[in-house]
């Protein structure tokens, strides 16, 4: 599948934003985050800024962005519509939580925070299900996709939170541990997804696509046109697959190994300028790593339409 940068940025930025938003909503009511309104403002601005930037980027993918509001109408059948509804709906409790946390404190912030966290998780789940519900792409239509999306959202959110706490000199053992644990969880989920893609049998083949398998093995003799077309540009993308090994190495290093090592370092050196720098570097590495992961998620996905254009299986 063609890795459109607007979609890569949307899923990774909004994922990180929702991850951070969920953690703020979960943890602030327990008094685990700094009480300074400046910290709250910065953290909320970062979380909601990433969400809004991601959603705006997703509009760039549309052929008719001015009609985007129509996408909120078909939530009964469409995961994309559900994602849109959930994204818009999350702003309500998030707004209440933001005002309550920054200005009022107390019970309202607690309830609104937890609802915000739940809604953020639902939104990320809906995003993942857009892909996991597509049967023609077996690398996507499996339960590892929502697991990976949720875990990576939590991971990037936790790394951002640790970095924010580090910047204001309030990084603590628990926030570094949380970052470390979420990296381990996301790494395990991503390896599980890759293993599933490598071992699960292809469902469809050139033989089932043409129905000519009863004669024998099927190969393409002539394509319909001598030039590229929409189907091949959108569904037959091959560049990423050629660099898959190197991109997986980049993902393993930048998204998982480096953030884990840097978070562990922050944990070991204890609160201070050094641990803050390490936590910031961990978040920066993860940003790069998650973009590489998302690029691969698209580039390695193989659509069944390629069976009509010379692929043996998909």
């Amino acid at each position, binding site marked *: *599948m063609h890795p459109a940068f607007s979609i890569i940025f949307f899923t990774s930025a909004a994922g990180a934003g929702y991850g951070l938003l969920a953690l703020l909503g979960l943890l602030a009511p327990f008094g685990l985050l700094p009480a300074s309104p400046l910290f709250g403002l910065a953290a909320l601005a970062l979380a909601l800024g990433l969400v809004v930037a991601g959603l705006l980027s997703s509009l760039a*993918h*549309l*052929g*008719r*962005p001015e*009609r*985007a509001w*129509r*996408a*909120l*109408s*078909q939530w*009964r*059948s*469409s*995961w*994309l*519509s559900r994602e*849109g509804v959930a994204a818009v709906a999350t702003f309500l409790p998030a707004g209440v939580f933001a005002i309550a946390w920054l200005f009022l404190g107390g019970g309202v912030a607690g309830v609104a925070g937890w609802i915000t966290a739940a809604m953020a998780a639902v939104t990320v789940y809906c995003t993942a299900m*857009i892909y996991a*519900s*597509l*049967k*023609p*792409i077996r690398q996507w239509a499996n339960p590892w996709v929502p697991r990976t999306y949720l875990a990576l959202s939590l991971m990037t959110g936790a790394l951002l939170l640790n970095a924010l706490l580090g910047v204001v000199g309030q990084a603590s053992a628990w926030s570094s541990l949380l970052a470390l644990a979420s990296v381990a969880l996301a790494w395990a989920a991503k390896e599980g997804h890759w293993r599933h893609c490598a071992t699960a049998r292809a*469902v*469809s083949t*050139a033989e*089932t*696509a*043409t*129905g*000519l*398998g*009863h*004669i*024998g*093995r*099927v*190969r*393409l*003799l*002539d*394509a*319909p*046109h001598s*030039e*590229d*077309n*929409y*189907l091949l540009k*959108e*569904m037959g993308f091959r560049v990423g697959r050629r660099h898959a090994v190197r991109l997986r190495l980049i993902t393993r290093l930048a998204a998982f190994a480096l953030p884990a090592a840097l978070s562990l370092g922050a944990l070991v050196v204890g609160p201070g300028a050094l641990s803050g720098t390490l936590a910031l570097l961990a978040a920066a590495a993860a940003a790069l790593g998650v973009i590489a992961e998302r690029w691969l998620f698209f580039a390695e996905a193989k*659509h*069944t*339409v390629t069976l*009509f*254009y010379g692929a043996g299986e998909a």
Partner: protein
Amino acid sequence: MTSLPNREPGASRLGLVIDLDTCVGCHACAVACKQWNDGGHMAPLTDTDAYGSGPDGVWFNRIHSFEAGTEQGGCGSRTTNFPRSCLHCEQPACVTVCPTGASYKRAEDGIVLVNEDLCIGCKLCSWACPYGAREFDQDVGVMKKCTLCIDRIHNETLAESERVPACVMVCPTSARHFGDLADPSSAVSKLVAERGGYDLMPELGYEPTNKYLPPRPRPALALDERVTRDSANDDLPLHGLLKWADRILAR
């Protein structure tokens, strides 16, 4: 509404039956489709750089050629021309994934259509279609697809014999048949029953309406021994001048 309609009893299920035995791969269906639909319900079928070095454009029909039985060697394999277009599935995920309600399946005849005024061009329907039936029109910014020539088949200004899709109308070998596949007594349903018409990628569960008729079996040709014989070691039945030449050359 992108939820699928409930099928009313007696509703027709219009579609195509494509005969892979008689298709000669002339692309006339693709061209006639392009010609009709460029002015039809889904118009325009935009082309870009049509006379340049990288021509591209929207087509509802694309004709592939496959070789089946590649492992059989010699004359054992079959070349099959393979027209590919929208199959107007009973379980069209292209409709249910649509976030805006632009994609819909008609309850009365099962045709899958796009309302271009509602389409936001998110391309998700083209990802959800296993068969590559939907193509994005980058000029208009919306998705395009086969309408089963809805503006021909129900068009009372046309002579009754012409109320068939353009691809069916034009086919010089009658490899394309149009009719009601919900009616077991229709000509297309009988053809499917007689010839063993089948679904493409049935394992994905889309339940396509269109059926494909397999190439008819034919006697397997033995490899011709005039081609395969190793003449250097043969005792050829030679006489006269040829026998003399053979003896001279063999020295």
